[in-house]
């Protein structure tokens, strides 16, 4: 069970070039809007025709520009979940779910629809029209409808983006359960890096129609290959950087020398650290260690379970901030009474050194 795609499509001045493999573990496609994520899904579903390339699903060629193969969407057997659900407004829940079921006895179809309705916790809503459902219910109907055709692959186009936070995590659990149960290739498109991490075992980062990175989610988040990927995966702090000697990097925008792993590779262009990796020195020893610097609080932002601090390094004077630190309420309670400057710690093992 695998989906393999190489495709190229031009649209005005924009060129999409993607290349990926997806087995039974879900692949998340992460990218900002306009990066070509949705277009990639539409090409695979057969709603758009790539200019060049090849799409092979579970051994069956769906598209091959050289052999002039282009299987129409209705014969691809791919379940596509749309961002705005795309439920048929004139059909009720049951009719929506059975729409794509293959010709078989009405009784058998009904039984399968019942099963889908039960799986998605939609009991009691069978007769409702889509507009009589909440957003979360609508998305569950759409998911049930896509799964009802027993798809060869499942494609999800930002399926949670129209839901509020509370519904989102509930529907997300059902999406994950459905993908696991299906045991077939699943592509999950999103612009939310946390969603990409939670839903995809592997991640493909798209930007401007090009693949910026691909690999396991741990690899993408721990070792982003470029600043762009690092930013897409949520990096908040970065500085232009220059290697001084093995294990020593000068952070030009932060005005400091950082100690880093000696095998960090050659010539990084940027150094960065994630906001939740920024720490505050506890002991006097830590306060004098490598990568510990004086800092002043420029401003802050409180959330229910964490605090975001915007810090200036080396001096209280000046505009803006150098670092953004995300700390727990407990840490905040500990440091807030202490006189400034505080000693901020950028652990060497958490530094990201980016070559481009």
């Amino acid at each position, binding site marked *: 069970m695998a989906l393999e795609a190489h495709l190229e499509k031009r649209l005005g001045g924009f060129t999409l070039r993607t290349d990926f493999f997806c087995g039974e573990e879900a692949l998340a496609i992460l990218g900002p809007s306009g990066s070509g994520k949705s277009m990639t899904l539409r090409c695979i579903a057969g709603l758009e025709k790539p200019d060049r390339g090849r799409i092979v699903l579970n051994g069956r060629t769906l598209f091959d520009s050289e052999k002039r193969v282009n299987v129409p*969407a*209705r*014969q691809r057997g791919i379940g*596509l979940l*749309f961002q705005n659900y*795309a439920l*048929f407004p004139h059909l009720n829940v049951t009719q929506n779910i059975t729409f*794509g079921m293959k010709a078989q006895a009405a009784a058998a179809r009904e039984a399968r629809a019942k099963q889908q309705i039960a799986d998605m916790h939609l009991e009691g809503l069978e007769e409702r029209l889509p507009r009589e459902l909440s957003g979360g219910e609508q998305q569950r109907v759409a998911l049930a*409808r*896509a799964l009802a055709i027993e798809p060869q692959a499942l494609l999800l186009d930002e399926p949670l983006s129209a839901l509020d936070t509370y519904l989102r995590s509930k529907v997300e659990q059902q999406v994950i359960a459905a993908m696991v149960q299906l045991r077939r290739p699943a592509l999950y498109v999103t612009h939310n890096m946390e969603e990409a991490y939670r839903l995809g075992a592997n991640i493909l980062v798209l930007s401007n129609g090009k693949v910026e990175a691909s690999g396991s989610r741990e690899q993408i988040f721990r070792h982003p290959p470029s600043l762009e990927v690092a930013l897409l995966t949520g990096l908040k702090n970065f500085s232009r950087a220059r290697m001084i000697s093995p294990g020593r990097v000068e952070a030009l925008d932060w005005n400091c020398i950082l100690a880093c792993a000696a095998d960090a590779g050659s010539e990084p262009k940027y150094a960065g650290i994630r906001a939740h990796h920024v720490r505050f020195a506890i002991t006097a020893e830590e306060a004098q260690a490598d990568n510990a610097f004086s800092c002043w609080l420029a401003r802050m932002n409180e959330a229910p379970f964490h605090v975001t601090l915007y810090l200036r390094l080396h001096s209280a004077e000046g505009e803006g901030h150098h670092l953004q630190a995300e700390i727990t309420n407990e840490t905040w309670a500990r440091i807030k009474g202490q006189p400034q400057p505080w000693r901020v710690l950028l652990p060497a093992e958490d530094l990201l050194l980016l070559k481009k």
Partner: protein
Amino acid sequence: MGVNLSPVWLSLETSVTATAITLAAGAAAAVWRANRRGIGPALLDGIFLLPLVLPPTVVGFILLLLFGRHGPIGRLLLHFGASVVFSWPATVIAAAVVSFPLMYLSVRAALEQLDRTLLQAARTLGASEWRVFRRVSLPLAWPGILAGTILAFARALGEFGATLMLAGSIPGKTETIPIAIYISVEAGEMRRAMAWSVMDVAISLAMVAGMYYWTHLQNPARAGLVRR
């Protein structure tokens, strides 16, 4: 004052037949045209919409040229021993031609306003183009199609100019209510003209009320359907 009601039946028969023809032709043209780009379809649009912008007498005159003894269609019909000018079919042709643009525009607008992702969703669910049309496009475009039908019927019922040109005013054969009114006024029979006018108002109101009632009864959910 006579009690010959033939103009009423003639008007109704003519309008119903013309509307049926228009529905089939207008819907077919709209389905073909919807979401098609290019200069060819755009030029064809001009011809489709011509009956709407031309004065009915001009439409009637063009039809007379086409269907007349020496016209291309008239000559073809003569081959089969048929002639339509100044006969009942002529009233139907005139009414159908002038009502066609209204049907075409309404159905086309309804089809083009359909949410394309719904059609795409249907395709990914394995539906053939015919099934997409029958199960998705048609039911969703239904209010627009119905509106077109009402407009076309109203236009056909009121048709006068082109009918007079192509079908004349033969009592019991081509004399529809509007023509009967005109003939009456010309002959100075104002009471008769008044009676026909009242009759026309009654028929029109009954038809519109009936259609409206039917659309809302047909499917309350559909009638209240609000689309993005």
